[in-house]
């Protein structure tokens, strides 16, 4: 309601700016999910904790979904703003590369039957994919892109008005709660799968 009704239209982009309320949180979640997968993969390599692999496996589908949503909603925003659905722009292309890393990560778990080997391969994919995260973040500064630079910065120099920032943060909160719910359900599924496999050894 906040995003669709109460927040004001942009002086330049008009009502199309409302797409931001789903596009930006989706992109943030997609990036944050992959960063956490990669960091947990590094920890898993160092400390050999099996639970970390279950967590990364549970996060991956959520991250992939939000990365795809960011690309699709970005495309829907691009048409009225730039006049095209798609451009091989640095930000969009690097997001596309992120989704490929997610797909490779998920496929490695699905296609490799030996669990230890699947975990190793997926961890390597996640660690290599981590290189792409700063590329996505700084692509708008390093190259001349159609995509606008960041409006929200952690150092307090944000250029977004509070009437737009509030619904954006509310939407982020709602989507994060949704992610937590899905993550817990997927993690529980993984635990049950393992327990079922070892039921006679419990």
């Amino acid at each position, binding site marked *: 309601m906040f995003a669709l009704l109460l927040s004001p239209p942009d002086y330049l982009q008009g009502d*199309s700016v409302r797409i931001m309320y789903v596009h930006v949180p989706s992109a943030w979640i997609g990036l944050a999910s992959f960063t956490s997968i990669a960091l947990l993969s590094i920890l898993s390599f160092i400390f050999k904790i099996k639970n970390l692999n279950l967590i990364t496996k549970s996060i991956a589908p959520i991250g992939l*979904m939000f990365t795809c949503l960011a690309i699709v909603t970005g495309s829907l925003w691009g048409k*009225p703003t730039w006049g095209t659905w798609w451009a091989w722009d640095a930000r969009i292309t690097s997001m596309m590369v992120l989704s490929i890393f997610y797909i490779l990560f998920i496929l490695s778990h699905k296609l490799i039957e030996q669990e230890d080997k699947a975990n190793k391969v997926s961890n390597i994919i996640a660690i290599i994919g981590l290189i792409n995260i700063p590329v996505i973040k700084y692509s708008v500064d390093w190259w001349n892109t159609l995509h606008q630079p960041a409006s929200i910065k952690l150092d307090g120099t944000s250029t977004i008005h509070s009437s737009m920032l509030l619904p954006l943060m509310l939407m982020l909160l709602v989507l994060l709660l949704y992610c937590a719910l*899905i993550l817990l359900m997927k993690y529980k599924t993984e635990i*049950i799968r393992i327990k079922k496999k070892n039921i006679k050894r419990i």
Partner: protein
Amino acid sequence: MIENFILMNGYGLYVWLSFAITFLACGIIYYKTYKTLKKYEKDFIKEFDQLPESEKKLVLSKSKVASQVLATYNKSI
């Protein structure tokens, strides 16, 4: 007023489609995840039911997950 809200000065199609795709995807993933969880719980119970009584007691005493799955499954049926 309502017409303006729906049309959004010509951007309605893009805005509504973005929100619809986002919430639809979230709904589908929730439904799929929920179904998979229930399927695994059901399979686990099936496997558990095939165990002899003494092993069942052992599994329940040693595994918190097993007793939790059994409790939630019994509640849902």
